[in-house]
């Protein structure tokens, strides 16, 4: 990073080479076509330069065969590059099963990060090397974008929904973290660093510090304080649906529609409870819109998730 005139970014994740080889492939193809076109432009301009003002070159009829040829060659090349790019994207899209979760909240103009174990940090993200990490991204205000160039990945952080991204760091070190989506006055100050550590070192770092409360514990405390459990009971007898075992499963709504109870569904049901009521229940839950920060919401959802883990 001390280099003053870099031409190529560091490769520090499993995505890096997948993206870079496509980049160099396209660079090669582009160079070939650019050189070829410029070569012929210069050649023709010189070879057929006007030698007399009264020159009248003979017209050349177009050739359908030639037109078809130079349509099909770019088409085939385009489709080949498309397939490679889409294939890489497909592999990069879903996080592996063994990914660890970390939660990110973007707000003007900082990144707030919490680890499930309770550790929190601002504008810094500590992750272990050679371990898939899944980030759940939420925004308190406008759209941000979580961008780590050395990992060749980014994802927009959109208010009103959760986006997820994942990566597996391959090299211990410190890397730039940028907000890539313009988010207001101090947009260029919404930067930080990603610290990739050896796994053991990461575990030590994680268990250091003061906070003894994990995200699930914090969520359970909130759940109690907000009085959620008066209706959402351990049994089916509550005025609201039982929450254990609900995460990741299909629920049937009053409309007859079936949806998966994922993070987004849970978030929406807390903030706008009337919109997707589970069948057999009345829309009596009050809204928590404006009363909970995105971080608290993530804790409560972690807690609700944990109710299904124990099954």
């Amino acid at each position: 990073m001390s280099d003053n005139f870099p031409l190529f970014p560091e490769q520090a994740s499993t995505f890096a080479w997948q993206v870079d080889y496509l980049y160099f492939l396209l660079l090669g193809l582009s160079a070939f076509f650019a050189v070829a076109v410029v070569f012929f432009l210069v050649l023709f301009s010189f070879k057929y330069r006007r030698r007399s003002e009264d020159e009248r070159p003979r017209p050349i009829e177009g050739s359908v065969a030639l037109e078809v040829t130079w349509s099909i060659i770019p088409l085939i090349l385009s489709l080949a590059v498309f397939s490679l790019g889409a294939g890489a994207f497909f592999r990069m899209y879903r996080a592996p099963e063994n990914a660890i979760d970390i939660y990110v909240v973007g707000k003007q103009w900082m990144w707030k990060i919490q680890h499930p174990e309770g550790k929190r940090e601002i504008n810094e993200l500590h992750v272990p090397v050679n371990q898939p990490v899944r980030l759940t991204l939420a925004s308190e205000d406008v759209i941000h974008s979580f961008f780590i160039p050395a990992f060749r990945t980014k994802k927009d952080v959109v208010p009103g929904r959760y986006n997820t991204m994942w990566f597996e760091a391959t090299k211990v070190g410190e890397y730039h973290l940028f907000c890539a989506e313009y988010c207001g006055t101090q947009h260029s100050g919404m930067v930080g660093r990603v610290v990739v550590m050896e796994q053991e070192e990461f575990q030590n770092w994680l268990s250091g510090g003061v906070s003894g409360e994990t995200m699930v514990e914090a969520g359970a405390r909130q759940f109690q304080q907000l009085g959620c459990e008066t209706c959402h009971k351990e049994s089916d007898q509550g005025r609201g649906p039982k929450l254990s075992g609900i995460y990741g499963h299909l629920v049937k709504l009053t409309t007859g529609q079936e949806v998966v109870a994922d993070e987004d569904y849970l978030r929406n049901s807390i903030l706008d409870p009337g919109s997707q009521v589970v069948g057999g229940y009345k829309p009596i839950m009050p809204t928590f819109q404006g009363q909970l920060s995105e971080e608290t919401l993530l804790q409560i959802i972690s807690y609700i998730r944990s109710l299904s883990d124990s099954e």
Partner: protein
Amino acid sequence: MTTDTAITTPTDSRRVHYLNASYGIKSWLLTLDHKRIGILYLVMTTVFFIIGGVFATLIRLELLTPQADVVEAATYNKLFTMHGVAMIFFFLIPAVPAVLGNFLLPIQIGARDVAFPKINLLSWYCFMAGGTLATVAIIMGGVDTGWTFYTPYSSTYSSFYVPLALTGVFINGFSSILTGVNFLTTVHKMRAPGMTWFRLPLFVWAQYATSIIMILGTPVIAITLLLVALENVFGIGIFNPDLGGDPILFQHMFWFYSHPAVYIMIVPGFGVISDVIACFARKRIYGYSFVAFSSLAIALLGFLVWGHHMFTTGQSMYASMVFSFLSFLIAVPTAVKIFNWTATLYKGSVSMECPMYYAMGFIGLFLIGGLTGLFLSTIAIDIHLHDTYFVVAHFHFVMVGGMVMAYLAGLHFWWPKITGCTYSEGWAKVSAVLIFFGFNLTFLPQFVLGYLGMPRRYHVYPEEFQVLNVMSTAGATILAAGYAVLFTYLILSLFMNRRAGPNPWRAKGLEWEIPSPPGPHNFDVTPIVTAEAYAYDEEDVTPATPGAPDEGSPIPREAERTEA
């Protein structure tokens, strides 16, 4: 027939043409003459180009160092927003269609005016009203949303002047729609006898394709801006997540217009380049119908690729794949154009005059712009490059390297026709070379910056990016010098009294058969077209013969005769 030597006589200055047919401010502001409306647009788009250029200068100065030293963050954000708004909505979109298109399209098809001259004037007033509102928003306090106006930042977190600027863009949209309606009707209904579809100059084909996009696309941005207003005024949740809206919906609607708008900017440029290359190679454009239809193909495909701006928003993986696939398809008609332009030079009679410098510059720069578009269509690469300087460099290569170079090619090509004056060929070449090299030095380093990961819209940045930014600013300085030379000799040309003949380039096409500058009604007698616009092999046979059967000489001579 009409060569430059034929009619360059001192009596030219006494001839009645569209510029001296009437005098006074009123004769301009209430004119229904498509040529004068073209000039009105020329003046005002140039004003906006200069305003946008000043903003760009300040941006490049600020980026000379990693720290904030020239302007503070809030000012910087306003600068890049207003640079984008001025350049895109008030220069790039109207420049070729409303300036060159207005002036040339009716003449090239042998008509006396556009189909709806009053609507044509109305479109200029819409442009002026929109431009005035946007300027007021800039002067009063500025807008800091980026030209993309993404919600919820633009609708809930930004300044009061955003709605004002949005209203300006909204009203300006109508000027596009009106121009589009006018051109489509004119091309369908007002072609001279014998001017069949496949005798049309490719410039007309390109304007036709552009008009389709204008009419289909512009209403969508108008609707989008109305919805933003509805949300703000009545609190109806459309884009604001706190009201149950979806901010990503705005991006869908915005890019549904704004991606085709990219083609509104570049497709008319294709038409200019085709006409210029044909003239300076003295050849029919190679693969005329393929070039013509590739414009239409690009126009239509352009409507189906908006989602490639949104790969990182979390849109469905399959949607991203479809948008990526369709974006790659656009490479095909674009490549076809470039290959055909190149092939046109084959066995031609190539003369490297100033418009050709710009046309060659266009091909080179647009080629890079197009090829780097493939990087961004490749989803896996775009995830990394989205919202970085790579994107900035890519669209400047297409918009400035492509569209502005094409516009300048056209302006230099038709300048003698429009003004009746010739400019200094030597200085013109100097400025073309300065602009070409300045441009490359400005934007090539930005591709590298982007791949390194420098995000766009950053006014402070990590120190390792400085060297590349200094190169970019140095290039921008050369670019600015190039534009300064250009403005100087073009304006001076008006006072040098070097008269252009009706056809200084010995070009083909109806516009070159009438005097420079054209008479108030273009043609005294409706021309009858007997050949296509690119009959460069036939020196003595003109594409058009005059309507009056007893009059053997072409129209300009007839006009001359009545004068003398």
